[in-house]
């Protein structure tokens, strides 16, 4: 996104992507007649005045895309409740209030807080955890768990660790205004952005690994790409894993001691174990196709997190699941720790079979009878394709002490180096990283005295 807007501002831009397809986690792949999204399946913040709509519209990318939004977009399922996020937010509030009538007024207040458009008030959540925020509003532990289950599924953190600001942002931009699916899968979105970038004069080199960021007199001077070609440049913008950027591409000697220590102490998010299922023509699921479901068979989100963070998958009784609108595929997953490539080589298919049994037990009886294709991506797979450290899903973990650290976006010790993407600590999810890319392009264009990119 940053490259697009810099090209729009009239700058000469090269994007070097190590994979053979643009998009990073936002890619899709085919297996026979089945089309699967590799990781995320939808994006948020696409309402009339939403950030994602503004950014795509500014590039004229939205015109070529057909975007669909299921209703409900998301549903949380527990042993006693089934609570949905509808396109109509009042209907969503009503659904929560019907399940928890004794918390009716506070539910409305809580939703109002999450929709708050006053940036300073929203910013006041910065030091709180999501648990502290929930405790300020609610007494019912089951309701608090229901608010936390989707965030564990999305971000891999329990409420006691997740920043209230990040949790509130995920609610306002991804759950209240989420579920937007491009026709043709997420690859269609990435391809449309890449095509627009090239139309505006940008150069896109795929299967091109950056090996080094060169620094001269305290400022970036260019990058070395895979066949040892040096590409001189005034600005370098890294969308890579932060550890890759700082430790491999720049090298430890280029860092200050203070920053090295900060980097060393940062914790990444967990990765995911994702199951891709191709279904038979007669598959008739008891769930709404298109809707994303979050299942947990108890209300202890903290112990669910403990189980998955220790790799005890058999003790984690939850998952997220989506049946494609045409019912031909199922995408399902759960947060998972990296462990080691050998662990996943030995356990990938054992976990796959147990996972299918768990879905049969909790959501779709006789699922296995309708499966014609099955495969899984492990944290190792996700790390291998995207070079994200240990296959981390969302960059650094969104804890209160790890949000909005400007040194991960614009390191103060090297001039003209910027980072974009989910390792900056500034943006979560697709709309969040789109915002970081867009905003970084604005900053650079202004500094380079280029035309207004909007």
């Amino acid at each position, binding site marked *: 996104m940053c490259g697009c807007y810099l090209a729009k501002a009239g700058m000469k831009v090269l994007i070097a992507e190590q994979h053979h397809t643009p998009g990073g986690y936002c890619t899709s792949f085919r297996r026979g007649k089945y089309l699967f999204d590799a990781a995320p399946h939808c994006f948020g913040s696409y309402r009339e005045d939403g950030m994602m709509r503004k950014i795509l519209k500014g590039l004229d990318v939205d015109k070529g895309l057909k975007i669909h939004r299921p209703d409900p977009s998301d549903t949380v399922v527990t042993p006693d409740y089934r609570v949905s996020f509808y396109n109509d937010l009042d209907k969503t509030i009503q659904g929560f209030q019907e399940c928890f009538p004794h918390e009716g007024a506070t539910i409305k207040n809580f939703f109002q807080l999450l929709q708050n458009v006053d*940036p*300073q008030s929203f*910013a006041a959540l910065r030091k*709180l955890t999501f648990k502290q925020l929930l405790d300020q509003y609610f007494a019912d532990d089951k309701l608090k768990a229901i608010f936390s289950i989707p965030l564990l599924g999305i971000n891999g953190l329990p409420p006691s660790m997740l920043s209230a600001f990040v949790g509130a942002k995920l609610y306002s931009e991804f759950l209240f205004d989420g579920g937007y699916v491009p026709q043709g899968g997420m690859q269609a979105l990435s391809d449309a952005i890449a095509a627009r970038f090239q139309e505006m004069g940008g150069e896109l080199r795929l299967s091109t690994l950056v090996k080094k960021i060169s620094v001269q007199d305290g400022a970036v001077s260019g990058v070395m790409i895979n066949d040892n070609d040096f590409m001189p440049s005034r600005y370098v913008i890294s969308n890579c894993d932060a550890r890759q950027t700082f430790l491999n591409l720049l090298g430890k000697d280029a860092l200050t001691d203070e920053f090295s220590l900060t980097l060393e102490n940062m914790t990444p998010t967990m990765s995911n174990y994702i199951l891709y299922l191709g279904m038979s023509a007669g598959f008739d699921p008891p769930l709404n196709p298109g809707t994303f479901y979050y299942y947990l068979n108890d209300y202890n989100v903290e112990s669910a997190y403990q189980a998955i963070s220790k790799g005890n998958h058999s003790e984690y009784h939850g998952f997220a699941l989506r049946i494609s609108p045409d019912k031909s595929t199922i995408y399902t997953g759960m947060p998972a720790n990296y462990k080691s490539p050998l662990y996943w080589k030995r356990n990938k298919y054992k976990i796959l079979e147990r996972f299918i049994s768990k879905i049969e037990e909790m959501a779709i009886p006789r699922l296995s009878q309708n499966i014609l294709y099955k495969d899984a991506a492990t944290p190792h797979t996700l790390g291998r394709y995207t070079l994200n450290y240990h296959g981390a899903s969302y960059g650094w973990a969104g804890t209160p002490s790890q949000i*909005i*650290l400007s040194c991960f976006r614009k390191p103060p010790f090297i001039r003209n180096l910027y980072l974009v993407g989910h390792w900056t600590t500034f943006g979560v999810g697709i709309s969040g990283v789109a915002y970081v890319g867009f905003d970084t392009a604005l900053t650079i264009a202004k*500094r380079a005295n280029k035309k207004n990119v909007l």
Partner: protein
Amino acid sequence: MEHIEKEIIAILSDVSGVDEQEIKPDTDLAKDLEIDSIKAIEITVAIEKKFKISVRDEDVPKIMTLRQAVDLVSQLLGQKNTANVKS
């Protein structure tokens, strides 16, 4: 006070990309500088780091203009100095 204002203007300019000369005491951070919630946190953290103070959560919503930011920082620095004298 002048020194505080100058430093805060530099922070606001850096985060918003708006020239320092355009930032006046009554400049509204959200409306005039397009400061969103993420940038509001970035500004608060930068102010804390620059002046070695801690801004309480309940004070963050009070920083709506440059003047309010300067007043809050002056007040917090005053409290800090008083505490240092007492200790």
